C-alpha cells in the first residue's frame, strides 16, 4: 500500500494569486521533456481525486477561503507542495495589503520548492519527495499534521 501511494501521486493544482510563471513551469514538468507521468503523476481536475495539492502564488485575501476549502476537500492521506518563493515568503509582494500570506499561516505545508519560478526539475523532485511523505503519512495513519517537518528543495539533483 505504501509503495502504491508513492508510485501514484495525483495532483490538484491551485493558483492563489500567482503571476502564472510557476503555473507554466508545472505544466512544463508534465511536458515531454520532463514527463512527470513516469512517476505516476496525474493532474486531476477535482480535489476529491487528488493526493497532493500543488499551490502557487502569494495567497491573496480572496484566496484564503478557497485554499482552506480545497484542503478540506482532499481526503487523507494528503500532502501540500508550495511551488515558488511566493507561498513560502510572499516574495516581492511582502508588504502588500491585499495579501494574507505566507501559505503556512493557513494550512500545513510539506514541501517548499523555492524559485521565481522554480525549474521543472525542482518541481518534479518536490512532487516525488511529497509522494514519499504521503506514503509515510499513510503508514503512520490518523492525524499526522505536524508529525513530519516541512522540507525545502534547495538544490536539484540532476
Amino acid at each position: 500500500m505504501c509503495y502504491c501511494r508513492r508510485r501514484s501521486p495525483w495532483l490538484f493544482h491551485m493558483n492563489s494569486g500567482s503571476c502564472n510563471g510557476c503555473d507554466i513551469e508545472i505544466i512544463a514538468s508534465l511536458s515531454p521533456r520532463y514527463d512527470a507521468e513516469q512517476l505516476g503523476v496525474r493532474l486531476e481536475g477535482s480535489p476529491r481525486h487528488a493526493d497532493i495539492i500543488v499551490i502557487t502564488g502569494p495567497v491573496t485575501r480572496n484566496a484564503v477561503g478557497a485554499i482552506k476549502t480545497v484542503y478540506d476537500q482532499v481526503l487523507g492521506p494528503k500532502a501540500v507542495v508550495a511551488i515558488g518563493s511566493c507561498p513560502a515568503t510572499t516574495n516581492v509582494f511582502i508588504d502588500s495589503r491585499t495579501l494574507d500570506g505566507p501559505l503556512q499561516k493557513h494550512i500545513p505545508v510539506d514541501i517548499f520548492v523555492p524559485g521565481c519560478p522554480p525549474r521543472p526539475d525542482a518541481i518534479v523532485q518536490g512532487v516525488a519527495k511529497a509522494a514519499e511523505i504521503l506514503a509515510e503519512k499513510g503508514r503512520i495513519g490518523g492525524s499526522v499534521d505536524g508529525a513530519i517537518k516541512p522540507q525545502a528543495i534547495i538544490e536539484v539533483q540532476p
Partner: protein
Amino acid sequence: MNIFTALARLLIFPGVLFAVPAAWFFLWVERKAVAMMQGRIGPPFMQPFYDFIKLLGKGMPPRTGIAGTIMRAWPLIAVASAVGAVGLLPVLPASGGFEGDLILLLALLEVPSICIIAAGFSSRSLFGEIGSAREAVLSVSYNLVFLLAIISVAAAQHTFRLEALAQLPASPLRWLGVIAILVCLPAKLHLNPFSLPNAEQEIYSGPITEYAGPELAMWELSHGLEWVAATGLVATLAAPHVTLWWLGAIAFIAISFGIVLLLSVVAASTARLAIDTTVRFYWQCTLIFAVLAISSALLLRFKA
C-alpha cells in the same frame, strides 16, 4: 451450460480473473500509447494497479441518508454489470450460450453509462450535472447507430446467439456492421473526439467529480472493464473461426489489443468535439451507413 460452467465463465475466463488484469492492461496501453504519440515515455506497466490500490486506501467523504447510499451504490452496479458483460463473451467455443445472449450483453454494456448519468445527477455537483447531461445526449446519439449496426449483424445471420454469430463465416455485411460498431466505440468509452462527459480542463471530471477513494477506484475499474467488454464484442464478431480453442482465445486477445491500440491512437491524434458536432456526426454521417447495413440485411433475408 450448467451452473458450474456459467460460474467459471463469470469468475475465471473471460470473467473476473481474466478481465480485471486485462482492464488494467488496457488502461495502461491507452495511457502509454498517448504518451508515446506525444514523445513521452509514459507511465510504468503497473500504473493502473498502483492507482487502484492507492485509491482503495484513501479516505471516503461522509455520505448520509438515502441519497448518500444511492451514490455509493452506482459504481458497484456499474462494475457488476461490466463483469457480467465480459462473462457473456463466447471466447471458449465449448462453453455454450443461450438464445438471445447478445441482447443481454448489449443491456449490460449500457448499464455503466446509465450509472454514470445517475451518479452525476445524484452527486448534486454542478460539474457532475453538466457531465451527466452531456453523457445522456451522447448516449442517445451513438446508441442508435450502435444498436442498428448490431441488429444488422444479427439479422444477416438469423440469430441473436453470440456463439452462433462467432462461428458463422463472416459476410461483407458483417464487416459493415463491425465498422459501424468501431465508430461508436470512442463515444462509448469516452475517448477523445467524443470525450465530452468527462471533459478535463473544462468541467473537471464530469459526473465523477464528487467521487473519491474506493468509489473512484470502482469507477476506474468499471471503465477498464467496459474497455474489455466493448473490444471483446468487436473481437468476437471479427475473429476468424478456428477449431483449436486456444488459438481462438489468442486471436480474441490479439484482436482486442489491436482495437485498444487503434482507439488510443485516434484519441491521441484528435481534439474534443463540441456536443452539437458530435450529435451531428452520429445522426447525419454515421446513421446512413447503419441504415444501409440494416436495410440490406433485411432485404437479403427476404431473398433467402
